[in-house]
């Protein structure tokens, strides 16, 4: 049971784990944050070197610099002259005086600053310590024991080490980003007066971190000219801790490959979902903002300061439910018609041989090749002739027709991929062709049918161009046309536009979720397959 080779491997893993943590600690003690604080800035327009105004301003600035030196700061005074000759031949000049101080800090100096990133730093340190402890304890005397024979206590300890290191790795970017935010954005927002709340406390913490609390009153202007550069080396904390994490996984599971693959799978799914949801996050937060806040030029709020639920009642008042009902009728009707016409056609295409089969397929595809924008004149003429102008029924039929190609084609593909033996059996059992189709083939082809169904519904739901031209009364408008009233010549009402769009997305998602299981159920019922 005991395995000397394993002992070697585990010893290596443990070594790597410790090494990674030591490396991380070394990185943290390096002066990675370099600060260049322009502690004081004075701009003087229409001033020339040597003139009265210049001398006055310069004297003023030098007094300030003296003040800083008296406090024990090692400051330099810079003077930047910008002269231009304007169109009238006059010389204009803008003089900028700055007082600078440069210094660096390491990661540990954030301890005791009271900044929010301090908490994260403590978390990282605590987690690495925990991981180290757990790993050492969990390995004691069991270095050569295969993982599946580990006693429960050791297994638990090693798992804990993995989890702690995972948290530490994930916390590193949080720490760095929190600092970035505090040093650039938060300072500039406070200084511009764009946010007020917590200003004094924040400045005091910054003073403690940067100037050992000596700047006092002048901290606001000192921070205004703060230029922070973190060395890219700080990101090396992640690989360092990652090495430890991988070593911990090796210690716990013996093999890291399958665990890693599983992790990557989740990572991939999470990234895809986040990217997909991102525009909906934007729509949601905008939908509940007030008209004034949709214009957030200084990027102050990631979320509305006040959730305006009244935006929802406003869009209801402005006709959205009626538009939704129309859309539901159009899309639902189009789906039914398209499937009723498409299923038999696809069945014939998949199961029967006849003259002109390929020609029909070509015909179906050809029907898709013009954009509705181009076909408007013809469609409108047709609808006049059929007296279907301005009617929900007209839109229904048009949408069904435009989605025939997909329905027929996808269903044909699905039917072909299902072996006909089951139907033949049903036919022999005395079912008619229709019985074989509805009782055998359609249940087996559920995934394809559901896809086609969703496709037709969604396309009809989202159709816009034809509806704008065909529908001429407000009462018959589908939602896509109805929401154009929120973007007018004078103003785009983003909050209503996005609120209505969100509301319009929900029915489709509900429809999808309610029939999604058929998409997965597929051919689980067994049977003969090709």
């Amino acid at each position, binding site marked *: 049971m005991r395995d000397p080779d394993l002992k070697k491997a585990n010893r290596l893993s443990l070594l790597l784990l410790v090494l990674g943590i030591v490396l991380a600690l070394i990185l943290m003690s390096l002066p990675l944050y370099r600060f260049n604080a322009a502690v004081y800035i004075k701009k003087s327009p229409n001033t020339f070197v040597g003139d009265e105004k210049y001398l006055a301003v310069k004297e003023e600035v030098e007094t300030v610099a003296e003040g800083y030196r008296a406090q024990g700061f090692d400051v330099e005074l810079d003077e930047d002259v910008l002269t231009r000759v304007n169109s009238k031949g006059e010389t204009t000049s803008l003089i900028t005086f700055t007082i600078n101080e440069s210094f660096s800090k390491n990661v540990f100096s954030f301890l005791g600053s009271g900044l929010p990133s301090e908490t994260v730093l403590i978390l990282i340190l605590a987690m690495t310590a925990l991981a180290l402890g757990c790993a050492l304890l969990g390995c004691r005397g069991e270095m050569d024991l295969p993982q599946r024979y580990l006693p429960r206590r050791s297994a638990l300890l090693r798992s804990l080490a993995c989890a702690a290191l995972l948290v530490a790795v994930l916390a590193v970017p949080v720490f760095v980003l929190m600092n970035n935010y505090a040093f650039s954005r938060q300072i500039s927002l406070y200084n511009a007066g764009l946010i007020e709340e917590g200003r004094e406390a924040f400045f005091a913490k910054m003073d403690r971190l940067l100037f050992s609390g000596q700047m006092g009153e002048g901290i606001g202007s000192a921070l205004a000219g703060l230029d922070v550069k973190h060395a890219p080396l700080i990101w090396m904390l992640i690989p360092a801790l990652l090495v430890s994490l991988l070593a911990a996984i090796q210690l716990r599971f013996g093999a890291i490959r399958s665990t890693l693959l599983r992790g990557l799978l989740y990572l991939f799914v999470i990234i895809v979902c986040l990217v997909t949801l991102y525009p909906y996050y934007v729509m949601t937060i905008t939908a509940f903002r007030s008209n004034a806040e949709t214009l957030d030029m200084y990027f102050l709020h990631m979320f509305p300061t006040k959730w305006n639920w009244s935006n929802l009642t406003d869009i209801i008042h402005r006709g959205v439910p009626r538009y939704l009902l129309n859309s539901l009728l159009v899309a639902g009707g189009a789906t039914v018609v398209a499937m009723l*016409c498409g299923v038999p056609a696809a069945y014939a295409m998949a199961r029967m041989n006849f003259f002109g089969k390929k020609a029909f397929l070509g015909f179906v595809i050809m029907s898709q090749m013009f954009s509705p924008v181009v076909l408007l004149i013809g469609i409108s003429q047709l609808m006049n002739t059929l007296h279907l102008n301005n009617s929900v029924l007209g839109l229904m039929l048009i949408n069904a027709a435009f989605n025939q190609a997909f329905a027929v084609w996808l269903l044909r593909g699905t039917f072909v991929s299902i072996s006909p033996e089951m139907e033949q059996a049903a036919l022999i059992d005395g079912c008619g062709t229709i019985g074989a189709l509805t009782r055998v083939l359609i249940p087996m082809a559920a995934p394809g049918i559901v896809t086609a169904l969703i496709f037709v519904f969604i396309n009809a739901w989202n159709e816009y161009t034809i509806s704008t031209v065909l529908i001429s009364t407000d009462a018959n408008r589908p939602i896509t046309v109805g929401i*154009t009233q929120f973007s007018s010549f004078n103003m785009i009402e983003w909050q209503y536009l996005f609120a209505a769009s969100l509301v319009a997305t929900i029915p489709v998602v509900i429809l999808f979720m309610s029939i999604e299981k058929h998409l997965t159920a597929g051919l689980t019922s067994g049977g003969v397959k090709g």
Partner: protein
Amino acid sequence: MKKFLALLLAAVMVFALAACGQQAAPAPAAEAPAAEAPAEQPAEAPADEGVTLDVIICQYGPNTNEWFLGSGMNGTNFVDKFESENPGIKLNLEVISWNDVHQVVDTRIANNNAPDILNIDTFSEFVPDGLLMPVKDYCPEDLYNDFFPAFIAESVIDDTVWAVPDLASARALFYNVDLLKDAGVEVPTTWAELEDACQAILDYYNGEIYPWGIDMTTDEGQACFAYYAWGNGGGFVDADGNWALNSPENVEAVNFAVGLVNKGFTNPNPATETRYDLQDMFAAGKLAMLLTTNQLPTYVSDKGGSINMATAGIPANEGKTGSSVGVMDRVMAFKDDSAPDQAARNEAIGKFLKFFYDPENYVGWVSMEGFLPAVNSAVEALVASDPSFGAWLDVLGSCQFYPAAKAEWATVRQGVTTVEQNALIGGDVQAGLDALQAEVAG
């Protein structure tokens, strides 16, 4: 087999019926001859004097739809009020967004299904085809005399008036008083001063404030052309009213505007940053100076901004006089040879216009979105409601308008925009304007 088909047909029929039930019953063809679209009410129209007018109105602001169809007109709406005051006339009125209106109107025209009354910006493309009725045919005399004569003159082709002005807006220079004052900058009146002011603002605010706003987007490029070309003694047409697009003044003007962009004095993406974007930047205090419509103060306060702003004339080149830029939309009536009683139809259109321009309705409509009026009778009430209207009406009096009465206007409007956008990416202005001139003037 047959059973299946029968089932299928039945299902289709059921859905068809359900859909028909949803909309109002389709109108029999003979019932309302003037109307192409199915009437909303089946049997109510009186047989003797039933006129139905199809009306298309463009979506001007957030309230337009409510005003005409909802309850935005003191609890009622335009259509209901009109129909109750004018029995025997039905309105089939649509409010359509500016993005789609040309598409809708053109498609209907192609199918001989033009609306009776249309509210839109251009009209000249409909005249050569004989689609429009002369205004004299339907507009009551007293209403006709009420329009500002200078406005009416903008809708004349071959000595005939084809459309009446709907409403107007005037454009001027808006600037952020505080931003200019802090940077020690005077309001520019000439192009040279403008460049100086831009440079000073750029320097003072380290480039965090855009000194000047330029909008060369596909929808507004013609306005940009007008601001600079008219400010340089050029323009779309010469003194005789012939196209003069490639004049040296115009070339210089476009090059100047593009120069402002290239020197970094403006918003960074003028080809895609629309008027809304610029107004938003101005409202947030990120843009110091902007040429835009008189509705800016309303827009800024709607957006919750509180900018200390003032207006001035549009800067012109040294030695040239600048001109205010006016933009006007129109109302026009289409011919309908299939209408059985032309006189009754014309009278109905006249009644529509009378109702539309009745100060009782019109003042509310114009002021609701902050536009300027087109009729004298509305001026008094408007000035009483908002004193700033008076100043704007003076500006409007000195405005130049786009040459929208010329048949090639649509081509020119897109043409100058394309030339500007091309210049932004390094194209040659002279060559572009030469080609455009050759295209429209033969």
